[in-house]
């Protein structure tokens, strides 16, 4: 277990360092430098060369590139991501401000999609009706074809704007902008009516994942139920309940956990779009704003942070894997 953790941590560090380096190369490899791109809106307008020069001096872009690289990397080690071109605000501050809301959103989305998806899948497997299979498969496929932002828009418009305009009952209508009172218990659980603001974005984020998880849970359980060791368990005289609980469910969860891990990546992308649609403060909407403004430090910094979070989440999934399947723990990586 220890060596496993060590290996994965090293891997994560490599990804972070490599990612930062690659990004740095991408950002600085072109003939134009980031300051120019920012000032000119990437060629959309002709900036005053003096302005550009000032920018370059201010953000250290006039130095040779290798030196900039070293500066940047040492800065990273200290948690210094540079400053935004737009308002000179330290990127690390921006991160501190925008990371928690995004994490909260992702957390709840995962909780909802796992709880609903896995239960639905397990139920469908137990009932073993092929109608359930058809429905979940079809829903999953269709949902994955609809762009997240379209779904978000629809939800927002229908249960938000339209509902308010036409006075729908309060259980069916939701606010559409921001997080409202934005208060949380223990930093995670929304209180004081904040939850109402979270319903729509969480629903949107969780929707695709729920369908996929339901489908994979069902398939996995049905397959596991046919395995030899389940028959042995019955032959031992165990009650059906116990057979399901100890010999089917745990084994069936293995591929499900894998899918949850894979879904993380999709979740990040979906979160970016959802935050934009619902005007929620978060890493996603901030990156978009930064990209639009060609604000290189913001984009770079936030990208690195997102990569870190994503990497940690993947690692958590891998570790939980070891809990479900002991064959993994013993170093057969």
């Amino acid at each position, binding site marked *: 277990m220890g060596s496993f953790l060590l290996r994965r941590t090293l891997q994560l560090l490599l990804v972070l360092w490599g990612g930062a380096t690659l990004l740095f190369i991408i950002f600085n490899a072109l003939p134009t430098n980031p300051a120019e791109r920012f000032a000119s809106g990437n060629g959309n307008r002709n900036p005053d060369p003096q302005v550009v020069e000032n920018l370059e001096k201010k953000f250290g872009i006039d130095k040779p590139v290798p030196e900039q690289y070293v500066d940047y990397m040492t800065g990273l080690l200290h948690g210094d991501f540079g400053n935004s071109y737009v308002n000179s605000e330290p990127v690390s501050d921006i991160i501190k401000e925008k990371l928690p809301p995004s994490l909260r959103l992702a957390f709840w989305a995962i909780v909802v999609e796992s709880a609903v998806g896995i239960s639905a899948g397990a139920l469908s497997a137990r009932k073993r009706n092929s109608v359930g299979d058809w429905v979940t498969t079809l829903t999953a496929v269709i949902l994955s074809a609809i762009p997240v932002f379209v779904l978000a828009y629809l939800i927002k418009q229908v249960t938000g704007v339209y509902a308010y305009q036409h006075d729908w009952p309060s259980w069916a209508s939701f606010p559409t902008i921001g997080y409202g009172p934005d208060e949380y218990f223990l930093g995670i659980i929304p209180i004081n009516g904040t939850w109402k603001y979270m319903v729509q974005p969480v629903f949107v984020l969780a929707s695709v994942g729920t369908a996929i998880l339901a489908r994979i849970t069902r398939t996995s359980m049905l397959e596991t139920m046919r395995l*030899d*060791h389940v*028959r042995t368990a019955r032959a*031992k*005289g165990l009650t059906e309940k116990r057979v399901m609980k100890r*010999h089917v469910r745990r*084994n069936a969860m293995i591929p499900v956990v894998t899918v949850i891990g894979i879904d993380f990546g999709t979740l990040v992308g979906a979160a970016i779009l959802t935050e934009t649609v619902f005007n929620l403060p978060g890493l996603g909407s901030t990156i978009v704003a930064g990209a639009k403004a060609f604000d290189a430090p913001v984009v770079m910094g936030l990208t690195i942070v997102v990569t870190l979070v994503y990497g940690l989440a993947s690692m958590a999934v891998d570790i939980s894997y070891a809990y479900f*399947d002991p*064959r993994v723990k013993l170093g057969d990586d």
Partner: protein
Amino acid sequence: MADDTTPQEPNTTGGPAAPDPDLAPADVPVREVPIAEVPVASEGPLPDTMADPTLLVDEAILDAEAEGDHAPHIGEIRHGATGEPLGAPILEVSDLTVDFRTDDGEVHAVRGVDFSVSAGEVLAVVGESGSGKSVTAMSLLKLLPPSARVGGTVRWQGEDLLAASKERMQQVRGAEIAMIFQDPLTALNPVYRVGDQIVEMILVHEKMSKKQARARAIEMLDLVGIPQANKRVDQYTHEFSGGMRQRAMIAMALSCNPKLIIADEPTTALDVTVQAQVLEVLADLAHRLSVAVVLITHDLGVVAGMADHIAVMYAGRVVETGTVDDTFDSTSHPYTAGLLASLPRLHGDIDQPLVPIGGQPPSMLNPPAGCSFHPRCLFAKEEAGCMSVMPELEVKPGGQFAACHRSEELLAAGNLVRRVEVES
């Protein structure tokens, strides 16, 4: 074993000690299994098995011991018994039928199986793939998938298991009748420790603490010959070798003191070198603990070494039952004769061709009319009813029960007798 340099004398304990000096080499009596219509008498003098009972030695022992192997042999525990009654039956299967509903129609996997097992006895159920032997085994404990429909009666100590409730079955499984499966790697759950799986079973059937159950589990693992049982008990199945896994399964099966073990092809998935060891363990423990065994297998060598009684299955029915010794020596059914004949000989002439039973097993969707074996049987005769009337199990002159219209006739003509070549 003393210096063994004379190649001519087979060092057998039970076989013929030396060739009869009165016979020229060319006339060496042959002990083989002819299944032709030609009467045996024209082949030369027969070994007189009535005069020399030692000629009734099991083939497997002959083969093994020809190499000079004098280790105590599984068969020696049982060998010698010639049909002594072993007590009242504890398991009686009557007219067992199993049908599967499939997309292609109804498959009649088991079509009327009868056999019985007495306390402490080893019954081997033998047949080709598709004969229905595994399905039979699983139906005894009602472990078949929901698409199966089972008929007939399975009387366990007087009680019909097929009519028993779910709760009763849960009591029976493991505590009264235990089962061992073919592939121990997949039969055990890979995500739990081996010891935990045994403990789980013990705790279901016996009232004891976890500690006590664990101690029992270690004791059982030790009993089956797994070294360092107290360490192994905490390992996972993939850390065990194939043979050890199967031993662990045996340990688990015996852990609640069942009176009967059903072993479904327990050695098929194992290396040949390990097969004998595992069977040794099973036979030894069964004997010591007076546990009856129903051994499902397709390997006649295994049967010879271990079983008291044999039930031969073909196309979902039992076609012959009897003691192993009697049946091997003088079978009453052409199919069994064919099986025995198809065994390759270690002693034979190297040019001797192998003698398979021609043809394929029948489709269980549409079994042939009359005797299911008749399309492949060399002795099938229209007049005897082979093509039209399903033969029932009836007692035959040799003492076995066989389902064949022509048994008496063929036995009298000597077509079904097995003869073994004597090393010269």
